[in-house]
């Protein structure tokens, strides 16, 4: 059921405001089997967001090949690529919800891929599947906020609403960029538990970028460490040595260079 993801020799470059070229990602290789759960860890500016954007085909790599279930999405027509996208889901760090939209519509938008034009329009006028939206929000405890406007929610609630879309989306791979950022530790533990559980039940591939080292070790069998745009390690959680962690998050070597990469990593839309 899950999508197989392969990144071979991915390189992404950005031109800084001063005109220099910086490598956001350099020679990244990653193979994720269908239904596998992988956590991407690393310091700020390591390129985690860009990596997820490449995997979601939201960003076109400057070098290297992306393969979803064996085929290169950038090699086919725009229309075919749009069809392929039905299987993708990217949750950015900032919840992508229009502030004045109501929670019910925001959640139901997750099901748009594959919905016909007429049904989409009718559902826009009057939410077509309120029970479905409620069922998606229930695990997050936000069922009571169904008809509230998104801008009346707290940051953490907004993040959970954005994740609730996953329950309705036809996606076969979940690419989540720091989905626990706005949540307190107790809530974060609950949510990651739910996400991994639901992903396992559906058999979808799960790739999550995160800061929370302990949660990553506890919930993900495989950890990929990213630093300075390259893969520092890619192995089973249990086999990681403490020095590897220290090297990954070493503040001495990081600093301004990594910060520049963070600034440059706000990816531009490369094309449908």
């Amino acid at each position, binding site marked *: 059921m899950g999508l197989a993801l392969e990144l071979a020799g991915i390189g992404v470059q950005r031109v800084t405001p001063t005109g220099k070229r910086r490598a956001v990602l350099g020679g990244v290789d990653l193979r994720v089997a269908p239904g596998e759960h992988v956590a991407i860890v690393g310091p700020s500016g390591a390129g985690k967001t860009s990596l997820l954007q490449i995997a979601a085909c939201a960003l076109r790599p400057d070098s290297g090949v992306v393969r979803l279930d064996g085929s290169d999405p950038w090699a086919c027509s725009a229309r075919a690529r749009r069809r392929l996208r039905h299987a993708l889901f990217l949750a950015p760090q900032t919840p992508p919800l229009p502030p004045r939209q*109501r929670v*019910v519509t925001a959640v139901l938008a997750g099901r748009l891929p594959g919905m016909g034009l007429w049904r989409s329009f009718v559902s826009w006028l*009057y*939410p077509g599947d*309120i*029970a479905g939206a*409620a069922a998606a929000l*229930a*695990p*997050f*405890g936000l*069922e009571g906020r*169904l*008809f509230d406007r998104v801008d009346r929610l707290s940051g953490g609630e907004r993040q959970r609403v954005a994740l609730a879309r996953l329950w309705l989306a036809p996606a076969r791979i979940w690419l989540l960029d720091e989905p626990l950022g706005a949540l307190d530790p107790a*809530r974060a533990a*609950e949510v990651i538990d739910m996400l991994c559980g639901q992903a396992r039940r559906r058999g979808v591939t799960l790739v999550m970028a995160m800061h929370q080292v302990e949660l990553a070790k506890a919930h993900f069998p495989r950890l990929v460490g990213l630093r300075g745009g390259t893969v520092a390690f890619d192995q089973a959680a249990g086999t990681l040595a403490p020095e590897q962690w220290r090297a990954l998050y070493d503040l001495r070597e990081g600093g301004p260079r990594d910060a520049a990469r963070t600034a440059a990593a706000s990816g531009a839309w490369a094309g449908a």
Partner: protein
Amino acid sequence: MSAGLAAAPPARRDPAWSGRLAMAIAVALVLWPLLVATEFTPWTMLDAHSLRVTGRFLGEFYPPALSAEFLELVAHATGRTIAIATCGVALALVLAIPLSLVSTAALSVSRLSGRMAPVPFAVRLCTRVLMVGLRTVPELVWALVLVRVVGLGPTSGVLAIALTYGGLLGKVYGEILESADAHAARSLLVNGSGRLAAFLHGLLPNASAELCSYTLYRWECAIRSSVILGFVGAGGLGQMMDTSVKMLAGNEVATLLLVFVGLVALADLASAAARRALRED
């Protein structure tokens, strides 16, 4: 955190639906009288006679009138239109500057020590009412009335623009002065300097950029007003178009429409360049 409900919740209804439906019905209900009141019967434009007249008129649009003598007339009229607008705004400044200085609360001495005293407040209120009156009367109405007094020609246009824009500029100048940093002006007033000095040395340096940019924007608007005023006899491009349409000279009308598009495009370019220059300044 899970809902913990014993039974599945019943299918919910969208609470906003009835409000939206009511609003939609209200709009639809209002639409009908609107169509009736404006005698909105567009199909009458498609009857045989109307189509023939329109068709002939439109047919003459191409090729547009590009003879040297007509283009010379157009150039002359364009110059006239711009001149009317410029003179109008210049006279408007003569009106607006004193009005704004009198009406702005930024130069209020009595307000320095708390609330404004009643007499200055009344004076300011009267000036504001005067400005509202000046700018609420549409400039076409001013022009129409002035034509009766001063005759056809650019004078009525210049005066109409001067009166309307005097009220407009006066109001906005006053607001700009009030929203500028009042510290320097206030200290000058507190130390007993005259209001004019407080304005020149306290308010003007801070507000000059905004005042200039707004005046430039309004000058652009005045050119458009000047075109419109031509339709009631103030001369310039508006009058040319009025004449050409009344004569059903389609080719001349086409040229004039092109001139309108060109003028607005020029204005867009100029304001974009001005905005860029101001940003880099």
